[in-house]
C-alpha cells in the first residue's frame, strides 16, 4: 500500500480518539468480563471480576457438556438455522431471477409486495401464525420454525438478490441464450456463480437473525428437547442464576461462534446486517 494510507497523528483528532477509545473499553470490558469469568470459580469472580483467573476452572463448561441440555439446544439451532438459510437462498434466488428478468409491470408490483415485508415485522402476525403452526401439526416442534424463518428471510433476500441479478451484464446472458442455453441452465451455470457475494450477504444476515432469535421458539416450543440455543439459554440462565461461573459459560458458548465468524468475515457481516437499510 502507499504511505498515504497510514496518516500521521494529528492533535486535532485527539478528542476523537478519546471518544472512540472510551467506547472500545465500553464494548470490550463487558465481553472480557463474560469470557474471563467463565473460567474462574464463582468465589474468585466476586473477589475480582476484571482480572485474569488466579486458577483456571473449566467446571462451568464441563457442566454444559455433561448435562443441562446445552448440546441439544446448540445442535437444534445449528439444524434449524442452516436448513432455513438454505431454504431462503433457494427460494429468494429463484424469485429474484424471475423478478429481474420478467419485464412486465406485474413484476415491479410483486417486488414491492416483497419489500413491504422488510418494513413490517412478522411478529405482528404471531397470533394467527400460532394457529397456523398448530393446524399444520408443527406446534412444539423445531420444524414449526422452518416455514416462518424462510418467510422472514425472503423480503431482504429477494430485494438484495434482485438488485444484484439486475446488475449482471446483459451481454453475458444474451451470449448464453444465443448458444441455446435455457433459463434453468443460465440460472445454474451463470447467475448462481456470479451472485455468490450477494448470497453470502443474505446468508449472514439470516444467520445472525435466526441464530439469535428468541421470539418464535419462545411462543412455539415447550419441550426441552426441541429448544433452540437462545430459548435454552433463558432456561439455563434461570436455573444457574446464582452460579455465575456456569451462567457465563452458557453466555460465552452461545455467542462465541458468531463472534469468531464475525472477526473472520467482519466486512461481510457489516454489509449483511446493514444491507437493505441503505435503500428506500
Amino acid at each position, binding site marked *: 500500500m502507499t504511505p498515504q494510507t497510514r496518516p500521521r497523528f494529528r492533535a486535532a483528532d485527539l478528542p476523537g480518539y478519546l471518544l472512540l477509545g472510551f467506547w472500545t473499553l465500553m*464494548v470490550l470490558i463487558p465481553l472480557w468480563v463474560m469470557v474471563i469469568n467463565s473460567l474462574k470459580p464463582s468465589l474468585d469472580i466476586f473477589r475480582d471480576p476484571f482480572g485474569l483467573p488466579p486458577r483456571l476452572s473449566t467446571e462451568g463448561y464441563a457442566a454444559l457438556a455433561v448435562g443441562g441440555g446445552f448440546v441439544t439446544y446448540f445442535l437444534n439451532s445449528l439444524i434449524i438455522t442452516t436448513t432455513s438459510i438454505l431454504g431462503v437462498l433457494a427460494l429468494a434466488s*429463484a424469485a429474484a431471477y424471475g423478478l429481474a428478468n420478467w419485464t412486465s409491470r406485474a413484476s415491479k408490483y410483486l417486488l414491492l409486495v416483497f419489500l413491504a415485508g422488510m418494513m413490517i*415485522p412478522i411478529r405482528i402476525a404471531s397470533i394467527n401464525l400460532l394457529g397456523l403452526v398448530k393446524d399444520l401439526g408443527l406446534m412444539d416442534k423445531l420444524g414449526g420454525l422452518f416455514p416462518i424463518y424462510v418467510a422472514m428471510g425472503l423480503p431482504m433476500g429477494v430485494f438484495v438478490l434482485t438488485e444484484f441479478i439486475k446488475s449482471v451484464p446483459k451481454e453475458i446472458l444474451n451470449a448464453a441464450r444465443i448458444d441455446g442455453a435455457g433459463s434453468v441452465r443460465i440460472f445454474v451455470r451463470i447467475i448462481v456463480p456470479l451472485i455468490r457475494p450477494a448470497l453470502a450477504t443474505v446468508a449472514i444476515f439470516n444467520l445472525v437473525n435466526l441464530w439469535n432469535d*428468541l421470539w418464535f421458539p419462545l411462543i412455539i416450543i415447550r419441550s426441552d428437547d426441541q429448544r433452540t440455543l437462545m430459548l435454552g*439459554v*433463558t432456561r439455563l440462565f434461570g436455573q444457574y442464576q446464582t452460579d455465575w461461573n456456569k451462567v457465563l459459560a452458557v453466555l460465552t458458548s452461545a455467542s462465541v461462534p458468531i463472534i469468531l465468524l464475525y472477526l473472520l468475515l467482519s466486512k461481510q457481516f457489516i454489509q449483511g*446486517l446493514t444491507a437493505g437499510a441503505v435503500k428506500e
Partner: protein
Amino acid sequence: MASKKSLEIDRTLVWLWWILPALAVYVVFMAWPLFNSLRLSFYTGSGFKLDNFIGFDNYKRLFGGGEDSTRFLGAFRNTFVFFAVHMVVQNSLGLAFALLLSRKSMRGTSFFRTVIFVPATLAIVVTGFLWKLLLNPQWGPVNLLLTKIGLGDWALPWLGETNLALIVVSLVSSWQWVGIPTMIFLAALQGISEDYFEAAAMDGATPWQVLWNIKLPLMRPIMGVVAILTFTGNFNAFDVVFAMEGPNGPPAYTTDILGTYFYRTGIAGQHPVGIPDMGLGAAVSTITFVVLLVGVLSMQYLSRDTQGVRK
C-alpha cells in the same frame, strides 16, 4: 402476430414459475397471517378458537380506561421513551462515530469499526443477561467499580428503581445496536463526492461549516432511513426487556413495553388467570401495525430529499 403473442405469454409464465415458490411461502406465512391477525382483533373466544365477533370491544378495553387500558397505555408510553432514548443516544453516537471514522487523518479506523459493531452480532438475550449480571446490585462489576473509584453513592440497583430501569434497559439496547447507524452513516459519508469538500476548501470553509452546510444536509435522507429503522426495531422490541427484567416489565410495570404487553395478553396469559386472550393480543398487534405504518410513512415524508442532491 398471434404466434408472437403466445410466445410472450409463454415467457411471462416461465418467469412467474420462478417467483411462485417464494411468493407462496411469503403469502401463506407472512402476508396472510398478518391480515388475519388484524381481522382477529374484532373477535373473542377461548384459546385458538376466536369465533365470536365483538366489533371494537377489544379496542374499547385498550383505550376505554380500566385495568387493561392502564397497562396498555403505560406500555405504549414506555415504548415511546425506549424509542426516544435510542434516537438520542444510539443515533447521535452513531453519527459521531461515523464522522470520526470517515476522517482521512484518523488511524486505526478498521479496528474501531470492528469493535463498535461486535455487540450487534450478539443475541439480544445474551446482551440482556450479560448486562443484568454486570448491573447486579450485590456483586455486579459495575457497582464494584463505582465503589472502588470512590463513587459508592452511585452504586444503585440500576434495574430495580422505578425511575431508572427503563432508561438503563434502553441504554443497554443502544449499546448493542449503535454499530448499525454508525455503518449506515459512514457509508453515506463516504459516498459524498469529493468535489463538495474541494469547493469548500477553496472557499476557506471551517470544519464546522463543512459539517453543517455540506455533510448534514446531504445526509438528511439517510437520517430518515436510520430513524425508520430505529422506529420499526423499537416498536417491535421484546427480548431485551424479557431478558433484563422479565415478561412483566418490573419494577411496577415501568419497563413494560408493547412487546412484553403483547406477549402477556396474546401469548402467555396474564397473571392471575394465565390464559391468553388472543383477540386482545390481536388488537394490540393491530395497533402496533397501524403505528408502524403511520410512523414509517410520515418519517419517509419528513426526510424526503428536498435538496434534490441524491442520485
